[in-house]
Each structure stands twice: as structure tokens, then as C-alpha cells.
């Protein structure tokens, strides 16, 4: 927390090295949100880059009332939802290749296949959710934000967050039933 406060101070002073540290620290998480929301790597990179640039331009106005990562996720979420709502968005196709994933030791071939199948199923299930439910479940179950932080990022009441999250999980349960039995 203190490190984040110090980083914010340096960012507001225009410290370019601090901005680089910010990007290094949050690049994967911001990109992950964009990718899980949009399903396309090129589009996700564009949105993630735009997120950091918007943040860089708005840093003088950042008052520190929200956590830095919450603020970043809020920017990324709005950009994703705006992109999804745009008319030309319908022409974009989702990437079919598997996600770039973290190394997982030395698993067996069967385990690798099983894990790949599971990840693909989870990704497809999330992608099939309505957008307003998808962003909530991504921020909660993938990025680990609290209900309050999600409400702050999306401008929603905590009760709305809770309701949407519950509906999203019921949808996911139905789509992932064969993995949960």
C-alpha cells in the first residue's frame, strides 16, 4: 500500500520511470481483462495500451481516493464495454488459439490436454456471458476485486454487483456442468 502511494506520488510528478513501473506491474492483468472481455489478442493489446495511455494522461487528476489498480481496471472496463458496444465490433472474430499461459511444470501429456480443454471451456463460457455479467465475473473471479471495488469501477451499487455476479455464476455452472460433476 505504501509502495503504491509512493508510486502514485512519482507518477503525478511526471516521473517517466514510474510510469514504466506501473505498466510492468499491471500489464498482464489489464491485458487479461481486455482479452477475456474481447476474445481477440490484437484488440486486447490495443485496449490495454489505450488504458495505460488514458491513465498517463489523467494522472494529474488522480486524487488517490481509489486504489491504483481499481482505477486502472475501471478505465479498462469502460474501454472494453465501449468497444463491445461499437458498431464495427461485429466484424471482429475471436482468436481460436489457446491463451498464452504460464508454465505449469512438467505435467503429463494427458494432463496438458485436459487442462487445455478445461481452459478453453472456461474461456468460451465466460465469452458467452452477457457483457454486463461478463465484466463482473472477470473482475471478481479472475482479478479478485471486492464487490465494493467492482461497484466503484463500473459505477454500480453493491447489490447490483451481487445480483449480476450470481446470475453469471449460474450461467457458467450450466455451461461447465460436465467439469463440475
Amino acid at each position, binding site marked *: 500500500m505504501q509502495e503504491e502511494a509512493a508510486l502514485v506520488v512519482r507518477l503525478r510528478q511526471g516521473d517517466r520511470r514510474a510510469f514504466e513501473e506501473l505498466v510492468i506491474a499491471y500489464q498482464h492483468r489489464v491485458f487479461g481483462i481486455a482479452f477475456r472481455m474481447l476474445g481477440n489478442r490484437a484488440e486486447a493489446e490495443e485496449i490495454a495500451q489505450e488504458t495505460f495511455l488514458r491513465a498517463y494522461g489523467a494522472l494529474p487528476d488522480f486524487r488517490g481516493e481509489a486504489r491504483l489498480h481499481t482505477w486502472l481496471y475501471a478505465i479498462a472496463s469502460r474501454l472494453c464495454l465501449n468497444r463491445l458496444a461499437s458498431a464495427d465490433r461485429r466484424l471482429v472474430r475471436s482468436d481460436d488459439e489457446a491463451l498464452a*499461459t504460464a508454465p505449469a511444470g512438467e505435467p503429463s501429456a494427458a494432463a496438458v490436454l485436459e487442462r487445455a480443454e478445461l481452459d478453453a471451456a472456461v474461456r468460451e463460457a465466460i465469452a458467452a456471458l452477457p457483457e454486463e455479467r461478463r465484466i463482473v*465475473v472477470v473482475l471478481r473471479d479472475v482479478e479478485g476485486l471486492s464487490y465494493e471495488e467492482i461497484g466503484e469501477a463500473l459505477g454500480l451499487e453493491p447489490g447490483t454487483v451481487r445480483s449480476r455476479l450470481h446470475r453469471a455464476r449460474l450461467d457458467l*455452472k450450466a455451461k461447465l456442468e460436465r467439469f463440475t460433476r
Partner: protein
Amino acid sequence: MNCHDARELFSALIDEMLTREERADVYGHLATCAECRRELAAIERTVSLVRGALPVRAPAGFVDRVVAAARPTPWYVRAARAALLPWPVKLPLGAAAVLLVGGLAVLMFRGGQEQQSTARYDTAPPVLADRRVTEAPTDGAPASTAPAAPAPPEVASSDRIGAAGEADRTAAASRLDPAQKRAEQEFRAESKARDAAPADNLGAARGSAPALQSAPPAAGEPALAKREGLRQKAAEKADVIARLAAPDRDTAERGVVALVARLGGTVTARRIEADAAVIEVAIPGDRYGDFAREIGRLGAFSVESAPPAAPDTIRIAVRLGS
């Protein structure tokens, strides 16, 4: 609590977002309902699957690209981007700019014409002052006569008066107040009389000095436009614009050339107009009196425009006609 109410709280139960009472109610129901226990377990496994999904990693080089994009854009890059605006944006902007510039040009041109007309007439006071008439107040009060104002005219001003077309005078006169119109009418009447009189008479009227007073041409003549054009051309260079009517133009021209040479002057230009030859000469200013006197022997000499005082070297445009 029934099954429906309990299941609505399962998600919040997993996230530990229930109050103590809500949690007690849900657990109380679960203790008696196996179906709801299975439902809760399925949701917990689903959440576990999602939370256990492998993390997504940003592509290689992402940080460098973002940091580079955040650098301030040099001015020349910004200018190039502005120049390369997409046509749907640039075209309407360009059209608007053209319309704006065109509109301003029209406004300036119209204003300029009006100002020119006014300025031409405003240069009249040297002549009008000579007629002892002052400009009427702008509020339309009657004009008053005043003592003879010192003749301030600059040669350029006289030339501008001469250069102003008759049409301009008419147009300007229509905008005059009654006093100014009256002064203009007096001025025209006297100008006609002076045009008809020999130059020496005018010179005599001013004593020994030659006639060096501006005078507009007689109005209403068919050749007025040509005459005005000739006057304007000569006025761009000459201090004095004069006319010499002689039975034999060639003889008169040779006489003028000889006279100028005798007075220490020189012929600077000669040109043929539609109905006359114009010869331009330059003589010492102190010999102008001799010039005006001796040229009268060659024919009927009249001065149409002259400065109030002779400069050191006086340039004269003589229009030779029969």
C-alpha cells in the same frame, strides 16, 4: 427459508458477503435440503474452475510499446498527422475555410470600393477650398463659407482628383449633402468656363505665374472617357497635364521639342493615342513660365492639371491635337 431464497444467496455465501443472520438462515436450510447442498457444491466448483483458469499474459514488448506511445509527440509529427486528416474530416473543414475566406474577401472588396469612392471625393477639399467652400458637417447642417484656406494640395491629391472618373463623381455627388452639391455645381460651371478660356488668361488672373491650377475636363463630351484615361495615364508621371491645339500636329510637335531643348529640358516619352499624340517632357521648374508663354505661339495651349507650386524639375504631358 425455502430453496429459492437460499439459492439466491449462494453466490454471496461463497464470497463471504452475507450478514451473520443471513448466513445462519442459509446454513439452517442447507442442513435440511440435500438438493440445495448439491447446488451449492456445483456453484463452488464452477467458481473454483474460473478462479483457477491460467492467467493471461500480455504479449512480448508490450511495455516498450506503451512507454514509447506515451512519449510527447514532436511538433512536426503532430503537424504531419494534422495534414493527413482523413478526408471525411478534412474536406468539410477545407470547404468551410474556403467559404470563410471568400466571404471575407467579398466584404473587404465591397468595403474597399466604398472607401475608395469616399476617399476620392474627400480629396476634393483642395479644389473646394479654393472655391471658398468648406465641407458641411456630417450631421447635415448647412454648409458655411470660410476664409480661403491655405492651399494644401499635394500633387498626388490633385492627380487623384483628376483620376477619379466622372461616374465616380456622379455617384459621390448623389451621396453629398446639399451644401456639398452646391459647391460641386459651382465648381463644374467654373471649370467649363476655364476650359474654354486661353491658358494665358488664367495665368494673367494669377499674376505673372503660369496657370498651375487643377481643373477637371469638360463634362458631357463623348470622348470624356478616353480623355479621362489619357489624363490618368499621364498623371501617373506628369506634374502638368496640358493640351495644345494646333492646325498641324507635326509642326506643333517639332516646335515643342525645339522649345523644350531651348529651355534646357528633354523629351521623356511620346505616344500615340486614338485621336492625339501625347508628348511628355521635363524642364527646369524655373523655366515653366517661359514654356507656358512660348508654347502658346504654336497653338491654343491649355492646362488641365498642374501642381500649386512648380518643383525643381517639372514634368509636362502635352496632348497634341487639332
